[in-house]
């Protein structure tokens, strides 16, 4: 069974997590004053431009596998012990992309800062959506794993159109997937969460299958992208 897609009402966060955005921007440690000032300035129009939307569905893991959505060992490991799973898509909408373009006109620092802010806000929106789903699960007496997204570990990014199609994201959220499996609007997230009747943690893929494993700046510093 693959359930029907349902909308998830998302409140726009009151502020963008500029500390997180500073990290995406490339700052290390405590960012300097001018960097934070730039981020604060760019955050205002970017947050105003965002129209977060989310859609999700519940499905049997077997049915998702059969539909070709679950490819690769890492995502299957993540879903171990979960007969069901939730598919989730979140997007900040196209006006965020437009604001990033606009900010970058004649000012590359503002453009890149805005892009980092967009990424931070997309993550916040995904977190908010996940929190909603956890409430739903608690009400149902169920437990959820963490989020796991296409392209992470060895979960083939080529499943992206299938995920979008199952969630009817074009019609329900204005979220499209290109022929090269990229999501547009760009600041969007898709993910799967395992559902079980007992507490489950899921299993993050680790760095073993990551395409960036040889050059990752976090790894060079003995950290992971999840830990910093």
């Amino acid at each position, binding site marked *: 069974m693959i359930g029907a897609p349902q909308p998830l009402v998302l409140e726009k966060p009151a502020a963008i997590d500029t500390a997180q955005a500073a990290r995406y*921007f490339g700052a290390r440690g405590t960012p300097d004053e001018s960097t934070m000032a730039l981020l604060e300035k760019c955050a205002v129009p970017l947050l105003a431009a965002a129209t977060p939307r989310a859609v999700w569905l519940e499905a049997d893991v077997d049915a998702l596998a059969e539909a070709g959505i679950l490819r690769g060992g890492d995502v299957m490991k993540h879903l171990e012990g979960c007969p069901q799973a939730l598919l989730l898509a979140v997007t900040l909408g196209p006006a965020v992309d437009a604001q990033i373009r606009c900010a*970058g006109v004649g000012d*590359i620092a503002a453009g890149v800062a805005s892009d980092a802010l967009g990424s931070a806000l997309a993550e916040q929106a995904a977190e908010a959506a996940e929190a909603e789903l956890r409430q739903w699960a608690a009400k149902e007496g169920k437990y959820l794993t963490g989020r796991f997204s296409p392209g992470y570990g060895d979960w083939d990014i080529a499943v992206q159109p299938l995920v979008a199609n199952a969630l009817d994201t074009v019609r329900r*959220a*204005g979220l*499209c997937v290109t022929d090269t499996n990229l999501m*547009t609007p760009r600041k969007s997230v898709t993910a799967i969460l395992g559902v079980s009747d007992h507490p489950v943690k899921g299993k993050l893929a680790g760095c073993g299958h990551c395409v960036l494993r040889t050059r990752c700046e976090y790894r060079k510093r003995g950290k992971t992208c999840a830990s910093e």
Partner: protein
Amino acid sequence: MQASELFKQSNTILLDGGMGTMLQASGLKLGAKPEELNITNPELIESIHAKYAAAGSRIVNANTFGASAHKLAGSAYSLEEIIAAGIANCKRACAPYGALTTLDVGPLGELLEPSGTLAFEDAVNEYARIVRAGVAAGADLIFFETFTDLYELKAALLAAKENSTLPILASMSFEAGGRTFTGCTVESFGVTARGLGANAVGINCSLGPKEIYPMAKRLAEAVPGDFPVFVKPNAGLPRADGSGYDITPQLFAMEMKPYRDLHLFAAGGCCGTTPDFIKLLNGVFAGCVPGRPAHKMPSVLCSPVDFVNVDGITVVGERINPTGKKRFQQALREGDMNYILEQAVSQVEAGAQVLDVNVGAPGVDEPAMMPKVVKALQSVTSLPLQLDSSNVQALENGLRVYNGKPIVNSTNGEQEKLDAILPLCKKYGAAIVGLAIDERGILPAAEDRVDIARRITEAALAAGIPREDIYIDCLTLTASAQQKDVLATVQALEACKKELGVRTILGVSNISFGLPCRPYLNTTFLTMAMYAGLDLAIMNPSSEEMMAAVYAYNVLTNRDEQSTRYIERYASRVPASVALKQAAQAAPAASASSSSSGESAELTGPYAPLMKAVEKGLKGDAAAQTRALLETKQPLDVVDEALIPALDIVGAKYEKGTLFLPQLLQAASAAQSAFEEIKTAIAKKGEGSASKGRIVLATVKGDVHDIGKNIVKVILENYGFEVLDLGRDVPVETVVNTVREKDVHLVGLSALMTTTLKSMEETIAALHEAKLDCKIMVGGAVLTPEYAEKIGADWYAKDAKRSADIAKEFFGAQ
């Protein structure tokens, strides 16, 4: 019913209800392609259509909503086969009831540029293929529905008008806030779709009758009373448990009753509705006569997001115009879109409401440049545009790609000109500026200019352009040359407004050519013209005197109620003259403090302040220091002695890890603003360029992540290289052709994703195959030096700094 009788009905017509709902009820698997059933199970599809026709639907949608190449990818059937079968199924079901069959067309499932990668013309072509298939299959009309992107709807409407003569119904889906996912307003949709030749406009899906009603009312008000409007709401809102929609046929009928007041041309249902819902609508709309009383139509210009109702003085920014500006002309010849966009963004910030766009200059292919600039502008601003050209082809090319309802500047009273321009405005739904001038030139007497204006107005009306879309320009004469005729312009303007009932427009700043302190004259003339009834003022919104006149005028004529907008703009400001005095007093103090707080104590000499400004990433300061240096130094010396050394210092610190990307980029932004001053100085002198070598940059086909490429571009430009930036999602041929045509010897390619590395490889292979004398550097998060070598790149650039080193190395060795 015959299709030709469609809009002459004496009663609201019933449309059908949900198709997906019926298919799911009969066991369609989620993710399956419902359109394939037209061929694999025609009986099922026909039976659903027949149920709707029996329930009273007289316009029935064939099961062709998702019949597009993208959505049918992987199907065993072509879209032509699916459409032919779908139309045939529907026609068989409709025949006994005399109902009409639509070619039902939804969005393509791909996001258009600029947010997505689907090019506008490719979307037009895809829709053309769908429309031709529908026409060949014998559809009675075309129904575009559930659109959320106005640009995509425009592509669809152009395709329909250019490939068929069938009536067109156009419908978009709005969220509760009254906008679509892409931010399009109800009004922008109504005005634009009508202008592009839709025969009826409507709202469908997303919400139930109750939520859609206020939007439908707004839609009805955005189009003339006799223009057909329809709705197809969902069966309420989705239930929280995902088990369908929340209202019954009876409740739906009750919530549809208020729509009688809107005198709809047609009504039906969308998701969740069934023949039972439609059956009850017979009673709801019994005796309801389509068409509303005529109402005064506003003069509107719009983009999807911004809707400008030209009712009173409206500011049109004049700065996107190369006339007399060498730096602008150079930017156009070099295709330097960033410079042009900066002109746009600064005018938006200054308070412009519409932007005039003129790209005509010697050595510029205007018909090719206009659509490029229109697209680029619409990717960063939502202000409506005024397409300004004397080149008919440039106007048409710009009109075609413009998203929304623009204004064309201009035609005049010459017959030849009217014949060329007016049909274009009609086809693309644009407003028109008519210059009160003809073969005889500018006539001094006001009456003569009004006569020409009358002729233009009549010709425009005859061409199908409504009066509210006609803007007459009575021509500003230069006070220094034709002082005695200045007043005639104001008198003619007033007469046009009163006698012809049209809107008016003037290029205000022309008044002051050749005289000192131009803002004084501009402002006074603007005030006179406003009082005579000027609607659109083409002016420099950065002129605070003129903007203040506009805001003050709106206060004094009681348009700006409670002076709200005036107070909002000026509450925390002081008048310009006072501000200048204050700045003059403050200036010495500021420079003293900046010289005492220098961190890089080792920097001394004339270039030190600029270098410090770049190092610290102070944009405004860097530009100001550069302007000061250029008074005594050669532009190229400033580049070599200050900018490049400063960037080298920053670059070295970045490599050492003592500063990071944010500081590097802020330094780059400061250098960017310094470089802009240098380019302006060089263009003014008219000597050569600052280029140390020409480089093509592109984010490869299929990839939309261009931030990294943009960083590389700015850094390379800061080092004095000329960058031809081809953008993102760049086809292989575009890279090859540019390298060949522009004689380029260094190419930089970027790709962020593993999935797009293949495009990078293909681009490199094509460059090699074409035997072009060029070297290639590549970069991107997932690339490795080994992979770069494997796909035939000459260099792997791990970051922007490295790409600048490669360029220096390459051009230094040449």
